Each structure stands twice: as C-alpha cells, then as structure tokens.
C-alpha cells in the first residue's frame, strides 16, 4: 500500500520542482501520401495528419487530469519531407507550399510544433534534398509551427561537406528572412550528425523511414527534481552523488513510461520509445546548469564542467533504462543556452564560452544548441562550426547537433528574446579566424576507421 511520504514526494516534485512530461510526440509516416501531383500530395498530407492526430491534444489533456502531471507539449513528427516531395516538387517554392500545409495541419489539430521538414543527406544530396534545403529559409519564415532538420553526417557514412557548406548559407538566409523577430527562423532549424529516427524533441524531431505507420514517443524531463535531490547530498562522495542521480532519473522516467502507455492505449497507436532527456526550460529551478552547480561548480563552464556533465549524462541513462521497456531518441542531458537560466547566467558572467560548450557536447546527448551569435558571422564560419560538431558526433558514434542563431543586426553582448520555451540569450562571441579554404574544398569527409565493423 502507498504511504503518505511517497505520495507527498511525488506531488512536491510536480508542484515545486517542475516535474513534467515534456512532450508526447506522435510520429506519422507520410510515405503513403507520395504523389506526383503537388495539389493531390498537399491534400493527402493534410488529411493523413489531421486524421491520425485528431485526438492527440484532447488525449494529452485527459491524461494530465487523470494523473495530475503536466504534459507540456503535444507534438507531431513526420517522415522527412525531402523523401515525400521528390516527385511532386519541381522547385524550392513547391517545398515551401508543403511546409505551409504542414503548418496548417499542425494548427488544425492544435499541436505547437510539427517536425520533419527535413532531409537526410549524410552521404550525398539528391535533387529533391537540395530543393528542400534551399526552401528551408522561406519555409521557416512563412510558417509558425514547422520545424526543420538536416542530417549531414553519420559514423557509417562520414560527413557530407557540400551539405555542411550549404547549411552555413541556409542558416544565414533563414536569419535574414526572420530578422524582424531576432532571426527566430534559425531556432527552428537543426543540423545533425547521427540523427535518431525516433527523437520526440523539437526542433530536430522527424519520423524515420524505419518506423511504423504511426508511433507514440514520449520525452520526459525533470532537471529541477535532480537538482533538489542533489541538494540533500552536498559534500558527499561521487558514489553517493551518482546513486542519487540514478534513483531520481528512475522515478522521473517511470512517470514518462506511464504516460506513454496510457497515451498509446487511448489513441490505439503503438508505443515507440521514452526519451530520457533532462530538458531545461527558462523557468527558475528547471535548469541543467543548476545541476552542474549543485555538483560543485561555481558556474557551468568552470573547470570540471565536462566531467560533471559526463557523469550526469551517464547516470541519467543508467537510472532511466531500468524504468522503461524501450528507450531511444536523444536520451541524456540537453545543454541549450537560451532555454536554461543557469546557462544564460554563466555566459553573462563570462564563465561559459562557445569552445567550452563544444567540449561539453562530446559527453552530452546533443550539441551546440540555441546559441545566439553575431549577425555578421560569415556563412563559412558557421559551416566550420557545424563541421567541428559533426566530427565529434561521427568519431564518438553519438548524435550531435547544431542550432545556432546568427542574430541579424546585433552583436556580442546584446540580448535576444525568442519568447516562450525558446527563451532569451546573450549573443556569444565567435572565433574570428577564417576557415574559408577548408569549407570551400567540397566533397565528403570519409567515415572513421572504427565504423567498419562488418
């Protein structure tokens, strides 16, 4: 029988420590919508999404009420659109049309983001991939809820440097087209290496081609819960520290597993995976950086940060894996700058630099995320940063990602406000030395030797 201490502990996590289920993401395959006629394709996509997801938001709300746990976002991911639009889209403007249909479908079913305006080009780009990539800036400027991602490398294939070069230019163009909103378009665009097929988190979610027709993936969260648990073991050794993170991650993930099972049963759609990520929000007490501080650092970015993040990431996985039957997605600690108050404070104090963030991405679950940089940063420099991050992912056989926002018209130290979950950020300085000749070489970086396991 339950006891009062356990019940109060759970409710304290929800009420005071921001425990929530961050997202229920419904993955929908659009492969059966493919058509050579653009108008027919648009209609099929709209119908498939609005039919499959019609009960998603209402079901999410009913589960919230039943268990008394907030489910912050209800979202949709779809098959990478470059695969769907290939035969109907003759120009990048045709792809923009598809983005508008996705936006409309998202609004109809009431989800706040829809991911999958994506291309998978880790070894090379098809004509269709290229058209979609060129459509990204306009698509993000002319839609509200559509998110885009491009996978430009993997451990098995190496890095497509032509795509990396193009994405530097695309990011600049997306920034330019949304400059009156602090270049918000770039906040909805992720460049990946080793992108997972079942990631429920935006902006990088898409429904992989290896997935079933429809699937429920759930992203849990809970940095505030981990921080509070750690505040009770201050000064104790690493064994106690790790044990505490593990136990807390277990509890948080179990809630996600419960919500996923319930959503799957109510919607009649199979359960895919739980993503065990510690995902911060700009709310006070919902910060991954504050966990790092609780572990013993004055600010995120101080010496020891990479080690602290490595152990945090590992213990979250060890605790979470036992709590769920299927784990996937990104699973680890997210370190976005603008979405985490502790990270913002660390940047403002001068404790956290772009280079230290890059080191941290070697041991966390994602990459350089939600980082505002000066608007006059060159496209090739952005490509160089992407290439570095992709190389970390490729060599370490992990997912890495880049979501940089070159804020047009603003410089180092100025603040940008994206609003809502996307938060706000101080613009960080970027290394000023050129990598033009490197980026302009063209071609591919081969896969690393340890990828040949056959």
């Amino acid at each position: 029988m339950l006891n009062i201490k356990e019940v109060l502990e759970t409710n304290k996590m929800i009420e005071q420590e921001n425990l929530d289920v961050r997202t229920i993401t419904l993955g929908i395959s659009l492969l059966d919508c493919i058509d050579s006629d653009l108008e027919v394709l648009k209609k099929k996509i709209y119908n498939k999404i609005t039919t499959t997801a019609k009960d998603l938001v209402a079901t999410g709300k009913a589960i919230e009420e039943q268990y008394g746990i907030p489910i912050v976002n209800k979202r949709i991911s779809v098959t990478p659109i470059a695969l769907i639009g290939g035969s109907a889209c003759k120009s990048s403007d045709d792809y923009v049309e598809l983005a508008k249909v996705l936006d409309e479908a998202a609004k109809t079913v009431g989800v706040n983001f829809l991911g999958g305006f994506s291309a998978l080009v880790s070894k090379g780009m098809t004509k269709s991939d290229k058209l979609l990539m060129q459509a990204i800036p306009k698509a993000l400027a002319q839609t509200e809820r559509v998110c885009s991602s491009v996978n430009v490398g993997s451990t098995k294939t190496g890095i497509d440097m032509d795509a990396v070069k193009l994405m530097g230019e695309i990011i600049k163009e997306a920034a330019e087209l949304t400059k009156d909103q602090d270049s918000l378009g770039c906040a909805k665009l992720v460049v990946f290496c080793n992108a997972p097929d079942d990631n429920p988190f935006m902006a990088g979610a898409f429904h992989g081609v290896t997935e079933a027709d429809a699937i429920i993936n759930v992203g849990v969260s809970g940095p505030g819960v981990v921080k509070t648990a750690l505040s009770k073991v201050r000064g104790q050794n690493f064994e106690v520290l790790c044990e505490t993170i593990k136990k807390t991650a277990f509890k948080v993930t179990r809630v996600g597993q419960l919500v996923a099972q319930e959503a799957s049963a109510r919607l009649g759609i199979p359960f895919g995976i739980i993503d065990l990520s510690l995902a911060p929000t700009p709310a006070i007490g919902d910060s991954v950086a504050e966990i790092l501080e609780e572990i013993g650092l004055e600010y995120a970015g101080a010496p020891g940060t990479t080690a602290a993040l490595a152990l945090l990431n590992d213990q979250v996985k060890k605790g979470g894996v036992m709590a769920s039957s299927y784990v996937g997605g990104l699973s680890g600690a997210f370190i976005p700058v603008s979405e985490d108050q502790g990270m913002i404070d660390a940047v403002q104090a001068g404790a956290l630099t772009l280079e230290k963030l890059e080191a941290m991405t070697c041991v966390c679950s994602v990459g350089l995320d939600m980082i505002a940089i000066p608007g006059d940063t060159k496209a090739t420099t952005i490509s160089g940063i992407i290439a570095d991050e992709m190389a970390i992912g490729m060599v370490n056989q992990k997912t890495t990602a880049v979501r940089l926002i070159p804020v047009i018209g603003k410089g180092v130290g100025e603040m940008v406000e994206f609003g809502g979950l996307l938060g706000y950020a101080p613009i960080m300085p970027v290394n000023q030395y050129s990598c033009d000749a490197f980026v302009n070489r063209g071609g591919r970086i081969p896969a690393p030797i340890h990828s040949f396991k056959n």
Partner: protein
Amino acid sequence: MKKFVITVVGHDKVGIIAKVCAYLAENQVNILNISQTIVDGYFNMMMIVDGGIVGDVTRMSKELSALGEEIGVVIRCQHEDIFNMMHRI
C-alpha cells in the same frame, strides 16, 4: 479496481477532514485508507478512495479543488498509478 489518491495540503485548522469526508460521503465515494501528518506546521493528508464508484473523475477533481479553495487548502485527486509507478518496481 481503480483507486484514486486524494491529497490535502495546507495550514492546519478545525474541520478539514470533516468537510472533505462530507463531500465524499455525499458523492458515494468509499474511503479505503486515510493517513495524516503535520509537517512544519502544514497539514498533510492522503486518502485512498475506491475508484469503482468515483465515476467522473474530472468533475470530482474540479469540485474537490474548489472545496479546497473554500477551506483554504490545496486538494488534488490523482489516479494511484502515478505513485505506484514511481515508488514500486
């Protein structure tokens, strides 16, 4: 059998349990277990109730929450599985 957990948290005062129990009795809700404690001057109570008769949980949840506001405490009603999942392997 579905069971629900009702928690009541707030400043201690006369008649909290009486009012909550009166509401449950009026709505034919059977109480299976009650435990109560005072933590740092705060009244904390947990009741496990029989979900078989609860019927419309959303309505009861809203009415209990409104009753809580009237008394000056916070009342929540949640399906027991969230606690079982978190605290039992």
